[in-house]
């Protein structure tokens, strides 16, 4: 009984911040010392999502950027990790992937800003996408390299000597062995992009509004109910991805 009670308490504790955000997002006039808000309304949610308001656009922009950065970063990361695993001094080259992390993302953005302005990428979604890849791609390479082991390479080689073409090796062997790691790298890359603030603010110059930017905007305006609503939206896609990962990709066969 006791372990079950402990688990339930832990579950409630983990759930509390999300439940509180949701509660706050449908509240009206909640002043000290009231335990509960004086009123409830779903209107802000309807306004935000139903009418194609700013928040709805920010949600779609964030989704577009994070999904693209996640997918491109993962594919490039695995392709690079595979290439590095074939090079005799691949581990040395891998050290280059740590370079972007010498700076904070904001500093990196400041360095990139000049070139992005010259290329006409500042203030555009494409610019933000490219800038975020500067952070996500090396991270994906580092993470993917840990999955690209000599054992996996030997298995691919063996499948080749058994008569499989490189495409067949990828389809019948590598995909099954790498789909879990691919999902992990995609999920991590998505998260980095999804919560990215400083880089997006500088390269987007305020014209590319993503959800994290909206949350900070509402916080700065002291609009806690809208900030809670934007923060709730910020939590939904990662939770959904986590659920998909668990249900579809890590099922024991």
């Amino acid at each position: 009984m006791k372990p079950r009670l402990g688990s339930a308490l832990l579950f409630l504790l983990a759930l509390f911040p999300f439940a509180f955000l949701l509660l706050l997002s449908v509240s009206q006039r909640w002043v000290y010392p009231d335990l509960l808000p004086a009123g409830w309304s779903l209107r802000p949610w309807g306004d935000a999502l139903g009418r194609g308001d700013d928040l709805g656009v920010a949600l779609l922009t964030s989704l577009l950027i994070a999904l693209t950065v996640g997918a491109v970063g993962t594919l490039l990361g695995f392709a690079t990790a595979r290439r590095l695993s074939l090079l005799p001094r691949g581990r040395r080259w891998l050290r280059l992937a740590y370079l972007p992390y010498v700076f904070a993302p904001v500093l990196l953005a400041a360095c990139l800003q000049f070139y992005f302005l010259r290329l006409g990428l500042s203030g555009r979604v494409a610019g933000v996408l490219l800038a975020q890849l500067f952070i996500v791609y090396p991270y994906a390479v580092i993470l993917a390299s840990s999955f690209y082991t000599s054992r996996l390479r030997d298995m691919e080689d063996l499948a080749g000597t058994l008569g499989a073409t490189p495409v067949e090796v990828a389809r019948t062997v590598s995909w099954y062995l790498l789909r879990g790691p691919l999902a992990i790298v995609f999920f991590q890359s998505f998260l980095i992009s999804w919560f990215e603030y400083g880089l997006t603010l500088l390269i987007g110059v305020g014209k590319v509004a993503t959800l994290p930017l909206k949350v900070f905007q509402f916080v700065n305006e002291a609009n806690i109910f809208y900030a809670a609503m934007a923060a709730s939206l910020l939590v939904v896609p990662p939770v959904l991805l986590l659920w998909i990962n668990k249900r579809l990709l890590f099922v024991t066969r």
Partner: protein
Amino acid sequence: MEGYLDARQISKTFGRERVLNDCSLQLAKSSTLSVLGRSGSGKTTLLKIIAGLETADSGTITLDGTSLYRVPPHQRGVVYLYQEALLFPHLNVFENVAFGLRIRKVPEPELRERVDRMLGELRIQDQARKSPNHLSGGQRQRVAFGRALIINPRVLLLDEPFGALDARTRGEMQEFYRRIAAEFRITSVFVTHDLKEALLMGDRLAVMEGGSLTHYASREAFVADARTGVAAEVSFWQHLQLKNHE
């Protein structure tokens, strides 16, 4: 002399290290060449070059009179078996053995018949539905052999295939290999660092040392060469026997 498998003056350098130094190898059809050598002597590199998994800096390889230059691994008909069985973890035993046939799009009834027969030959028919994780080391190696033999490879390259097994299982597998080598008339290069295994497995013998390969015309010539370590081994056992008599 030209063999069924004929590799001539193969050289390979990694960085500043010369791993293979003008290695030549001739192998007759349906025979096994044992290559004895220490770790790092270049045995694996030579096998990988023959399999097409590594490129040679110089030299030529022909198989049944046809050059293997620029022939990709999947078209050579040369299967490379590692020390580890490397069974595909997402496939059960049956599907692992069937792998090469599925790649060749063999019709389902013929595929089932051939895989069942191979599992029978390897005496693992009762393991067909098991996952590779539920097999012993010896069973895994049997499946790896079955997966290779079912596609009738032209040459089998064995890179210390029993190196990871315990002494008893290793002995059983050596016996097993000799049986299937005769039954399937396998042409193979068997690489090992174990002196007894080299003597047991090979119809012909060679030693790899410092990137150079030395062939022996007979078993006697192999035994007589001090580099093979046979004399040292014999002396050790004789010395031990004398000590026991004292």
